[in-house]
C-alpha cells in the first residue's frame, strides 16, 4: 500500500527527515512514536503530499508521489487524514461536513451522500448530532465527526496525526474506540500517537522515530518490552 525509499524532507536548510525507508501493507496498522520534533507529523504529511518531498521515492496505492504527472487530488481521495485539531468546517453542520467531499470530489448525489453520512455518524455513535454545528460538540465528538468525514470518501488508507492529543483525558477513550473498530475492520492505518496503550494493543507494528529517521521498528510487544536501541529505551522510560 505504501512504499517509502530514502525519503528526505527539508524546510529551508533545516533537514527534518533524513532518509526514511519503510513499507506498509494493506490492512496493516502502524503506530509511529517518538519525541517531539522528531519529524513524525512531517513524515505523515509527506504521505498525502501536504508537504512536498525533497528527495526519495514515495509510492502510495500505486501512485508515485514524486512523479509530477501524478494527480495529487486523486491520491488524496484514497488517503483519509485526521488531524490533532480536528479541523472541522465551522460554517457547516456535522452532516454537511461529511457530505461535502463525496459530493464535490466523488460526484455522488446529495441523497447518496447524506445516506452515507448518516450511516457513518451511526458508526461513530453520533447519529443525533447530524444537524448540529461543530462548535456545539465536545472535542471527542468533533474528532469522531472528523473520522467519519474522512471515511466518507471511502479511502483505502487512513492517516492519524495525534488524534487524541488535543482532547481532555476523559474524551480520549471514545476516539480510540472508533479507531480500534476501524482497525478490526481491516483499514490500513498509520497513526502518530502518544497513546502507548493503544499502540501496544492495536498496532501490528510500531515505528520509533528520532531525529528524522526510523530508529527502530517492530512488533509492539517487542518494542515496548525489549527495545534494542538506547534512544528507544530512553524515550519509553519517559512516557510509560
Amino acid at each position, binding site marked *: 500500500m505504501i512504499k517509502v525509499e530514502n525519503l528526505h524532507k527539508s524546510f529551508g536548510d533545516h533537514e527534518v527527515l533524513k532518509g526514511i525507508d519503510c513499507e506498509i501493507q494493506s490492512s496493516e496498522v502502524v503506530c509511529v512514536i517518538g519525541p517531539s520534533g522528531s519529524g513524525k507529523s512531517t513524515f505523515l504529511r509527506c504521505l498525502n503530499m*501536504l508537504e512536498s518531498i525533497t528527495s526519495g521515492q514515495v509510492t502510495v496505492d500505486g501512485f508515485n508521489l514524486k512523479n509530477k504527472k501524478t494527480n495529487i*487530488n486523486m491520491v488524496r481521495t484514497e488517503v483519509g*487524514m485526521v488531524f490533532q485539531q480536528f*479541523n472541522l*468546517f*465551522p*460554517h457547516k453542520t456535522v452532516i454537511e461536513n461529511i457530505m461535502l467531499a463525496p459530493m464535490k*470530489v466523488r460526484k455522488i448525489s446529495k441523497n447518496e451522500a447524506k445516506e452515507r453520512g448518516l450511516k457513518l455518524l451511526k458508526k461513530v455513535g453520533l447519529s443525533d448530532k447530524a444537524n448540529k454545528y461543530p462548535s456545539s460538540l465536545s472535542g471527542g465528538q468533533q474528532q469522531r465527526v472528523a473520522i467519519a*468525514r474522512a471515511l466518507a470518501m471511502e479511502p483505502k488508507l487512513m492517516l492519524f496525526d495525534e488524534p487524541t492529543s488535543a482532547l481532555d483525558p476523559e474524551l480520549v477513550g471514545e476516539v480510540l474506540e472508533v479507531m480500534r473498530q476501524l482497525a478490526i475492520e481491516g483499514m490500513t492505518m498509520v497513526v502518530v500517537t502518544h497513546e502507548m496503550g493503544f499502540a501496544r494493543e492495536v498496532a501490528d507494528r510500531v515505528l520509533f522515530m528520532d531525529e528524522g529517521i526510523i530508529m527502530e521498528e517492530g512488533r509492539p510487544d517487542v518494542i515496548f518490552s525489549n527495545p534494542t536501541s538506547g534512544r528507544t529505551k530512553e524515550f519509553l522510560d519517559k512516557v510509560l
Partner: protein
Amino acid sequence: MEGRFNWAGVIDFLPELGTGLYYTLLISIIGLIIGFVLGAIFGLGRISKNKIFYGISSIYIEVIRGTPVLVQAIWIFFALPLITGYNMASVTAGIIVIAVNSGAYIAEIVRGAVQSIAKGQVEAGRSLGLTHNQTMRYIVWPQAFKRMIPPLGNQFIISIKDTSLLSVILVPELMFQGRLIASNYFNAVEIYTTVAVFYLIITLTLSYILRMIEKRLDVQ
C-alpha cells in the same frame, strides 16, 4: 434667537437636496459594488503566488492608500482626460473615484480575512481531495466573507462620506447641492445642518442593516 434662523425655509430646498441625495446614493452604491469586485480581485492578488498578479495588486493598493481621495478625484477628472483625450462626465468620474479608492481598501480587507482562516481548514479540504479552487470556494470564502462584514461596513461608511469630496469635481451630490444653495441664499447654518443630518441618516441606516446581517450570521 427665535427668528435668527429660518429652519422651516429648508423645506423649499428639499427638491435640490433630494437630487443631491440621489447622486450621493447612486455613486456610493455603484462605486462600492465595483469597488468590492476590485477588492476581491486585488485582495486575492496580494495572496497570489503569481509574482506579476501580486506586484500589480501591491502597486495599486499602495498608490491608492498613499494618496488622498481629493487628489485622486481631481486627478481623474482634470488630469486623466488630458492624457487620454477623453472627457468624462463628472458623475462617471465620481463613480470611478469611489470604486478605485474603496477597491484598494477592500482588497486589504479581503486579504486579511482570507489569511485569517486557519491553515488547518485548507489542509482539511485538500486532504479530502478537494482542489485548490473548491477549497477556496466551499471552505475559505464562506468563512472569510463572514469575517469581512464588519470592516466592509466600516469601509462603506467611509466611502459614502468621501463622496462629499466629489463636489470639487462638480458632481451634483448632496454636498455640492448644499453649497450651491447656501451660497445663493445665505442660509449656511440651516442648509449645512440639514446636509449633515442627511449623511447621518444614511450612515446610521447602513450601520443598523450591517448589525442585523451580523446577528443573522452569528446564529450559526
